[in-house]
């Protein structure tokens, strides 16, 4: 009888552990509301617009799980000299009149009207049909005009020869780069690395999904909470929205 009781207890514990793991690791995937990966060769779907909703009330000051995950995923050094690439960074904000403190991640805002795409002389900066703004590394001549044009300081210039090619994204000296929204993962049906890392930490500050799908979690959440887009005055229609600022 006691043996049976122990067995049930173990079973309960192991199921509980599995459930806990699923709840803590999977939200990025669970919130990632599209059904299938994009087959190779198939064009990006113009009916989709990928975006993020960043809840600054859930983002913990001092936590840089999203930054570390991005660096690892994309083979960035993680150094923070002014010449080092930073695709995502943490902003520590303090409201000027109230003194309220906010922490939040900052990256390419994947604008619907991206100034970097407008100014790029060679068309290396481009926006995919599903709203992801990218740099074609084979076409970038390294003029840095996109960096001058970006209101969010989202882009980095590769100042040194790249020796670490462990990342999933191609990188090259003398070209400009920025957050790809982990396009290689999105095309596989997996959430961006920063989203997954944030969820793994239990913060769930970053919600990722299809803004154009009214049934998606992100679209529903944007409908139900007050959110803002950064530098909305510029009318660039960023794909990233923020709650709590």
């Amino acid at each position, binding site marked *: 009888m006691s043996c049976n009781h122990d067995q049930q207890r173990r079973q309960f514990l192991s199921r509980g552990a599995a459930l806990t793991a699923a709840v803590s690791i999977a939200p990025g995937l669970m919130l990632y509301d599209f059904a299938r990966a994009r087959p190779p060769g198939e064009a990006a779907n113009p009916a989709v617009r990928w975006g993020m909703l960043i809840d600054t009330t859930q983002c913990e000051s001092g936590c840089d799980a999203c930054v570390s995950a991005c660096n690892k995923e994309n083979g960035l050094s993680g150094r*923070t*000299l*002014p*010449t*080092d*690439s*930073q695709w995502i*960074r*943490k*902003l*520590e*904000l*303090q*409201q*000027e*009149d109230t003194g309220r403190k*906010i922490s939040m991640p*900052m990256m390419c805002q994947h604008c619907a009207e991206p*100034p970097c*795409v*407008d*100014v*790029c*002389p*060679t*068309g*290396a900066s481009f926006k995919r049909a599903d709203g992801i703004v990218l740099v074609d590394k084979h*076409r*970038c*001549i*390294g*003029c*840095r*005009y996109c*960096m*001058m*044009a*970006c*209101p*969010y*300081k989202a*882009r*980095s*210039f*590769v*100042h*040194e*020869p790249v020796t670490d090619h462990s990342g999933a994204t191609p990188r090259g*000296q*003398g*070209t*400009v780069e920025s957050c790809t929204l982990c396009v290689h993962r999105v095309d596989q049906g997996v959430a961006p690395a920063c989203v997954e890392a944030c969820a793994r930490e239990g913060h769930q500050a970053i919600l990722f999904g299809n803004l154009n799908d009214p049934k998606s979690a992100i679209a529903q959440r944007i409908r139900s909470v007050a959110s803002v887009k*950064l*530098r909305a005055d*510029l009318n660039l229609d960023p794909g990233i929205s923020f709650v709590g*600022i």
Partner: protein
Amino acid sequence: MHHRTFAQIEIRYFYLLLAFGLAVVLAGLVAAQQMEAHGHIISGMNNQVVWGLPHVFAIFMIVSASGVLNVASVGSVFGRHVYKARAPLAGLLSLALLAGGLMVLMLDLGRPDRVIVAITNYNPTSVFAWNVLLYSGLFATVGLYLWTLMDRTMGGWSKPAGLLVFVWRIILTTGTGLIFAFLVARQAYASALLPPLFIIMSFTWGLAIFLIVQFAMFSWNELQLNPAIQKRLKNLLGLFVVSVLYLVATYHLTNLYFSRQVAFERFILTQGGFYTGLFWGGYVVLGSIVPLLLIFMPGLGQARCVLLASLLVLLGAFSLLYVFIIGGQAFPLLIVPGYTVHSSFGDGQLASYAPTVFEWALGAGGLGVAFVIVTVGVRILNFLPHDDPRQLMEGN
């Protein structure tokens, strides 16, 4: 005893100047090769100040290349003979400066080996891409214009060719100003005043360069410039210097009127340390007020005063461009209004920038290219302005 003839001495000086120019060009090429090999890490530029000293040199030369043609336009388009005699020299200077400026701009690219991509993949919404056409078009139109000026059988075409160059260079300098005017997010730039400011800056800097080269050529040939022409050209320079001051003042005053721009203006005009000093000391005092005194003060205004004034105008040009391009980037972007901000990426902080020897060498290399082209050009072809005393007496 063997006496060297003037021609022998002259040719030695010529080769000496040529060797000097080529050495500077070589230094620029070596710097570019080093930046290509090691990356821009060996420059002072970074992810905050993405355009640095090479861009100051390049934009100075490209803007001046357009403005120096003013002398030609007044001659060919508006029919002033005094200026028409100077049109071939103006054309040569324009081509030389444009070549130097473009060399710096291209060799500063992260991937200069891909420069051809700018032609094979053309983005029509990019003002940079427009400028690829405008710059190469200026080479073609000025080349055509020089042909009509220097080939007697083509003389009848010099006026329409001059008109084409006139229109082309105004559009070109507008395009250069628009590179910055289209940057909506940066406090220093998004202003419709920039294209006209760039146009009047081009007139000023171009004329200053023209006056310096003309002084050197007349001195070399032991000639004296006619005082009436001297007076006319120096007064024109003075007028241009005042015009730039007016537009720069208007640019800053309009910014001061917009409360969101006040912090940036405070940075440039009062609290920016080196940038503030360079603006007031380099551009306003040494680059504008002192040249105006040298030009207009009773008792001054002679050839050497005009030469010094022209050199100071160029010092002012570099000061103004440095403050505009680098100071404009050093001031942090306003990403989240109403909040003070800190990050590992320099958000909310003034960016630091110190140009390295490689950037100085690359920029100087561009000037060297212009110098070599002009030195060889005036040596092998007749670019010396020949003034007709009869037309001078007619006051034309």
